[in-house]
């Protein structure tokens, strides 16, 4: 496999960051993921698409360490990952957003994003409570990092607003901010554009591209909107009924007969 290459729009895609090898995931008798292998390269935007129930979210949960596959190996940064708790995975540099927004509704936007910095904070609960010395310095440093993200995602005006009062599109953006605050190597986005109108989708697309461009963050995303997926991603994995039915650049995938059948249905005659 070639090592690194440069995309038509001038970004450098590096070596393999995450390698999924023969992943099989079963819930009792149901096989949600059937022996799927694919990789995610450093710096790329990788999409996972497929019809409802194809196993996309399950796959994302395997990557984030929430589900543990019965078979197969997960390789991250050239090392086989042992079975880990999700917070250990987060510490490794993988952050995510959720399909059904999972923010703290009663807390302000700022506090929610500060939560994303948790893995970067080392001082204990007592020194933080006393608010002195190292704890204070640490908070200031982390707040600065958070403020840069707030600036980046243009959500200054809602900094102090409780998340519960925000419209859906903005909540999605706050969730992205929280994931970014962890300064992840790999960012997992579960349907970042679901339920958005055209304008919100365009904004979100721009932010995803900017994140990738500005911070060099590798992004794996699940999305239903084909137009968005084809425009954003470098490579696409297509799943159907837990199987991988396509893998390649958007153009390759678009021409794949099996993919077309899965999406448009096949005549049974």
């Amino acid at each position: 496999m070639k090592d690194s290459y440069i995309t038509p729009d001038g970004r450098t895609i590096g070596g393999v960051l995450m390698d999924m090898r023969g992943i099989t995931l079963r819930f009792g008798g149901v096989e949600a993921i059937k022996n799927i292998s694919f990789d995610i390269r450093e710096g790329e935007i990788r999409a996972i698409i497929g019809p409802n129930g194809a196993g996309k979210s399950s796959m994302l949960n395997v990557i984030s360490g929430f589900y543990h596959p019965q078979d197969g190996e997960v390789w991250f940064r050239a090392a086989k990952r042992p079975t880990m708790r999700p917070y250990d995975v987060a510490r490794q540099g993988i952050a995510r957003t959720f399909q059904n927004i999972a923010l703290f509704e009663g807390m302000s936007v700022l506090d929610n994003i500060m939560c994303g910095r948790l893995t970067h904070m080392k001082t204990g609960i007592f020194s933080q409570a006393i608010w002195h010395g190292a704890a204070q310095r640490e908070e200031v440093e982390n707040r600065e990092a958070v403020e840069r993200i707030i600036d980046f995602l243009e959500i200054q005006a809602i900094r102090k607003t409780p998340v519960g009062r925000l419209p859906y599109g903005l909540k999605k953006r706050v969730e992205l901010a929280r994931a970014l605050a962890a300064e992840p190597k790999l960012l997992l986005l579960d349907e970042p554009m679901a339920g958005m109108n055209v304008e919100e989708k365009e904004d979100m697309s721009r932010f995803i591209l900017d994140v990738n461009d500005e911070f060099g963050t590798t992004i794996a995303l699940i999305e239903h909107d084909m137009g968005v997926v084809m425009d954003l991603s470098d490579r696409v994995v297509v799943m159907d009924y837990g199987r991988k039915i396509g893998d390649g650049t958007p153009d390759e995938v678009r021409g794949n007969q099996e993919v077309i059948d899965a999406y448009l249905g096949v005549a049974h005659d």
Partner: protein
Amino acid sequence: MTTDQLHSIPELLARNVASFGDKPAYREKEFGIWQSWTWTQAAAEIDALAAGLLTLGAVPDDHIAIVGRNRPALYWVMVAAQRIGCVPVPMYSDAAAEEMAYALDHCGARFAVVSDQEQVDKIADIREGLTGLEHIIYLDGRGLRKYDHGAMTSYGDVQAAGRAAELSVRLDELSAARGYDDTCVMLYTSGTTGRPKGVVLSNRNVIETSKNSSDFDGLRVGEEVLAYLPMAWVGDFIFSIGQSMWTGFCVNCPESEATMMTDLREIGPTYYFAPPRVFETQLTQVMIRMEDAGRVKKWLFDHFMAVAHRVGPDLLDGKPVGGLYRLRYALGNLFVFGPLKNTLGLSRVRVGYTAGEAIGPEIFDFYRSLGINLKQLYGQTEATVFITQQPDGEVRSDTVGVPSPGVELKIAENGEVFYRSPGTFMSYYKNPESTASTKDTEGWVATGDAGFIEEGSGHLRIIDRAKDVGQMVDGRLFAPKYVENKLKFYPNILEAVVFGAGREYCTAFINIDLTAVGNWAERNNIAYSSYQELSQHPQVLGQIEAHVSEVNTSVASDPMLAGCQIHRFLVLHKELDADDGEMTRTRKVRRAVIADKFSDLIAALYSDATDVYTETEVTYEDGRKGQITATLDLRDAVVAAEQVAA
């Protein structure tokens, strides 16, 4: 150095560095914190940028376009341009690409300093047609990494090149070469009619005006202003550059457009300017929130506002007020006015101005009764803002004040107001015909507004745009704005356009205010899926009809304008918008455009029809166009009996 020798903005800057170098000159909220620059620091930034522009090949008399929201770095571009003898040309950052193309091409800017990727993209779209534009300098590099940097440099890099070049002697030479009558800035008028015109203002215009107006209100170092109005607008140039440089006060820039109200509260400006629309919006929001407030709070608010209406303005003007009322007002201040002013960010306002459009008397009185010294001024780009303004203690909602220091006024036979002042513009750029038709050889400038000077007080009263004032078919006076302003006072009416010149009766288009009407709909469980649907809701139409009828009663009481009562009206299915060319960027209605675009609706208003089907083209924010269709109700309003002049 005495102030008599200060003949340019860079010289004022040098004086400020010498006199109060370590006082704050600029602040900007960024990353959640107010960052500030002293006069000394700002001057160093400006010099680095000016030298950087020289290394890029700028030569005296080049035009340098500036596009972006209010940020210290962009204000520095203006002064840096002046430092090397160039002419800054600030432009409206929300203008569509074609509008910007016209101005960029017309002024022949060789350099454009822009805020971010959005503006870079906009210029990239039109760059082919712009032969003069050589180099773009951008402030925020986000998303620009992959762009071709052949003719594009970041602001920081330009400054770094400038610092490395060590050109301070050259900078001083170039600054010294500029005289009092050389160009200070060029500003494009918003253009209610036709193409925008480039108004050339000299150092004399700007500095004399800044001096006079600062003296008028006693502005001084230590004043705080919030710079949030478009940089391309002459008012912002005078407040944030002219007066700030003259007096040495600090200019504060908000974090983003959306945070303006929060930033206003944090800064608490002492000198504040806002167009009537901002005051209207704030008042609407206060009223909406009071509707939602608990009974006790609502009672407190209503009770003390009644007191405030009665004695607030008099207290502000220092007129005698009874002791009991003083006490009640003081209590009101404790419970209502003080906290309310604080919430609005207006606690510290010492001098407040509104201009641009007439302000509804009730809105004006509301703010004054709270104890905010809100005044009116009348001005235009060609006058370097100030023509008339209201002195403290002589503030009324129906006049625009007395001539500003150094301004002479005369009223022509047709009622048009003319002025002559030290601020009178030099010329329209590359347009001697327009210059000659606007400014006569003696320096008198036609304002285009009809008005009269009130006997006794000497205050100027503006009736309407001179060209909009017309006659009805029976010869009675038709002054659309007079009626529109009365309509716009209602919180649920955002905009109104009245027709009637050369007709038998007047009709009107009305835009509902989505904030106010939407809130009302929510509270009354009225479902709607779009602006259009809400605008045609029978209850909404009923409310508007009641307002129009009330306005008719009020109009009927003025014998001169009683003919302007509105007989029929409709509520428009879309908001009038600058993107569709229906308004200027400063949100003034373009009557001709509207009359032309909606000619089918006007025809229907002057027919017997009860509704009308229409198709309208709309332009989205990104420039794409679409069609909307609607069937609009045509309504009759109650016309009041006219009072016969005795």
